[in-house]
């Protein structure tokens, strides 16, 4: 029997693949890498591309990933796939946006006032019910 290695492909939102393989090909940042069982420990960044898994029996499974990390241990290979499209400047833009939102929120506290008002009324009604309940219990025991 040929040697195999355990492979897990996971993304933040779900588990994509878990099984054994004879060989794994992954799109590492410096070029495609092929991982055979008992490969030395390796940690690599991946770019968008295809992860191919040669399963025992000659079957091949393909997964497209938009980037992520690859961890290789002698008996287990882990692919941490990104779900979002990532790039350093995109991240910075998102960071800037989150910052601006925070500043805007601090200045303008009227956001979604109508919804908040309706909800406040409902909360009051529920609180009233609870208060009445408590009063009732108290008068019942005394």
């Amino acid at each position, binding site marked *: 029997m040929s040697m195999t290695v355990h492979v897990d492909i996971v993304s*933040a939102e779900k588990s994509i693949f878990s099984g054994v393989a004879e060989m794994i090909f992954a799109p590492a*940042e410096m070029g495609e890498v092929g991982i055979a069982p008992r490969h030395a420990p390796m*940690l690599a960044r991946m770019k968008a591309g295809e992860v191919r898994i040669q399963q025992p029996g000659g079957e091949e499974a393909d997964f497209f990933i938009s980037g992520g990390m690859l961890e290789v241990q002698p008996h287990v290979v882990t692919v941490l796939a990104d*779900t979002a499209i990532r790039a350093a400047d995109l*991240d*910075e833009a998102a960071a800037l946006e*989150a910052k601006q939102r925070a500043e805007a929120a*601090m200045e303008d506290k009227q956001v979604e006032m109508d919804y908040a008002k309706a909800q406040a009324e*409902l909360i009051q009604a*529920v609180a009233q019910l609870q208060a009445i309940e408590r009063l009732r219990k108290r008068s019942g025991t005394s």
Partner: protein
Amino acid sequence: MAVGKEIREKIRSVKSTQKITSAMEMVAASKMRRAQERMDASRPYSDKITAVVSHLANAHPEYHHSYMSEREVKRVGFIIISSDRGLCGGLNVNLFREAVKAIKEHSDQGTEVDYTAIGSKALGFLGRMGGNLVSESCQLGDQPEISSLIGSIKVMLNAFDEENIDQLYVVYNQFVNTMTQKPTVRQVLPLQQDDSEEYSHHWDYIYEPDAKPVMDTLLQRYVESIVYQGVVENIACEQSARMVAMKSATDNAGDLIDELELVYNKARQTAITAELADIVGGAAAV
């Protein structure tokens, strides 16, 4: 009959409130199931990345990343994860109480605090409390995407890189079961080492392209996955807390209606008796 008009009005209003609360209870129950599934679905990633990071901590890297070393604490960052909506019992209040306790410990020692708010309730809370809000993400919905969190987290990570903050915490509700949600304050940075791994011989990874960029990316993903896991767990907590709160509100409304009906019937009977007495009295006089 004119008797008990106010009481009947009151009964009607309580009934309509009861309808709303029972509908919300059912909605929350079905959403809770889906939120729990989502929580379980995101667990493999956070388990795997935690494993990789703990391997890394136990390896002997050629490059020592700043996320892994403690330094003097002058300023800390808090990421507070709350729900977007209310009507979920004491969920957010308990969380904020826990957060305030943790923050107070820092401010007592003269440490300053920066905040990131995730969820409208946290934003509102921080607005009332005052404090240096550096980023926020709100209205994530029931299916949060990691891409909507990246920006907020990045602000904190940048602050850490520039040594503007020296520790980073996340505050969220941990899902224990449907009835129990545990407000949790967790230190994210610097990473907490655990020495539980069995192998201690000298080894290191092959890095591609290089140790620094690889570790930068990995640790950034790691922090994001912790926050994301916190967010999905908090949503599961929110739905279950809402279900329980709405169930008790519906029950209370039911009790109240019973009671009001009793009062109403009594009033009606009193009125009828009085009327009969009048008629009988009138007939006797004739």
